[in-house]
């Protein structure tokens, strides 16, 4: 995982996932008061940086699931910062 400077929205998304566990992107958007399109953009960026895992989930209302990675938890806790 390369060094990554987190923006405020990205940090907010990661903190929500670390606190609440795996959820759908729409739930992340609702929890963080971020608009759905913006949330998906942030999640895709975080996914390509290895901070979150994003995959299909037919059981979720918006058909997707997102979970924080161990590396991102470490990053949030300051161990990699």
């Amino acid at each position: 995982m390369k060094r990554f400077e987190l923006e405020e929205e990205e940090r907010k998304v990661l903190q929500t996932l670390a606190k609440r566990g795996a959820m759908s992107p729409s739930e992340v958007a609702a929890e963080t008061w971020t608009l759905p399109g913006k949330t998906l953009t942030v999640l895709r960026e975080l996914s390509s940086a290895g901070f979150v895992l994003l995959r299909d989930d037919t059981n979720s209302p918006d058909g997707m699931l997102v979970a924080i990675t161990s590396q991102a938890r470490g990053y949030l806790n300051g161990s990699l910062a």
Partner: protein
Amino acid sequence: MAVTPPDEMMFGRRTKITRGMKIGAALSLLLLAALITIIVFPITATTPAWVEPLQTNVYGFMARISPYILVGLLGSTVAIAELVSTFQTYPREALRTRWAWILIAVNVVAAMIALVVVRVTMTEMNPSLQILSVGVGFQAIIRTRFVLAKRIGGDGEEGEVALNLGWLYDQFQNLARTQIDLELMNNRRTAVTRLLDYYPSMAELYDIAWYTITARATLTREQEDQRKADLEKLLDPKAPENFAKSSIALMILENGGQAYVELLLTQAMQNLSPEAMAMGKPSSADKLLWELIENYSLPEMVTLAEKLCTSDKAVTYVRDAAQPDPQANTANQKATIAHFLVQQIGLEPLQKALAERGRE
């Protein structure tokens, strides 16, 4: 989804502790207590005359059979240790299978027969040494391969002259291990299927698996990290969804054990009970979410928010979220607003709104 009462929950076939077994165990304990009482009963001037010969006979009998009991106990301990180390993830369940009992019984009986042979053939040997040599030595011998000659510079077993006394026991042990594994496999499959029935959401399964690994007290930091990394791999977008869910459920079972899975299923059943439904437990929140998404269009969701939300900021968020956005599709927008409304307004007003809409 079939809801089974918790007291009927049991995975696959396993050796049940029947009433007969419990009565047998209680009688054995009573017999043992009676024998000990007779042996240690103090003989005084007032003791009836028949007590002393009885005590002598019982003591003599116990002195004759105790070596066999001792070697039997040693044999069973070794067999139990073998089983527990082989099935480290499910030791309790493995010990409750039929073949585990057979393996333990074979070890006990073999040790007792070995003691008979030693006593018949080595009459001069000290009795304590006889017990020790059979209890420890016999267990080692039947598991040992003696190499009598080995080719110089040879690698592996090729070219060796060996006397494999453990061959027969190896064959039997392999048979028992396979049979126990098959019996546990049946239990594992049932447990995984039921976990998937009661926890259909991958997010929930993933969180349970994560918590289970974190909560394990005996894992080292490295083991915990490795298991979490394995869990994360299961969320790989390339892995088929059903495979990912089954594997996560299996991971919960392997890390938490069967009793923990039973506890999770019991909790899920309680949440699905009519009483829990009436109290608005989480499962009804999920149902409400789906109903909102299926019954309302985006403009209707905005109207609903305007009607029920008390905060202007929340209404503004819903309006913005409902605006056309090239980055998000309608399903994503509706799901976001539905989650937001459940958080901001709560279940009850939304349920009422849905009911009113149904009547209209």
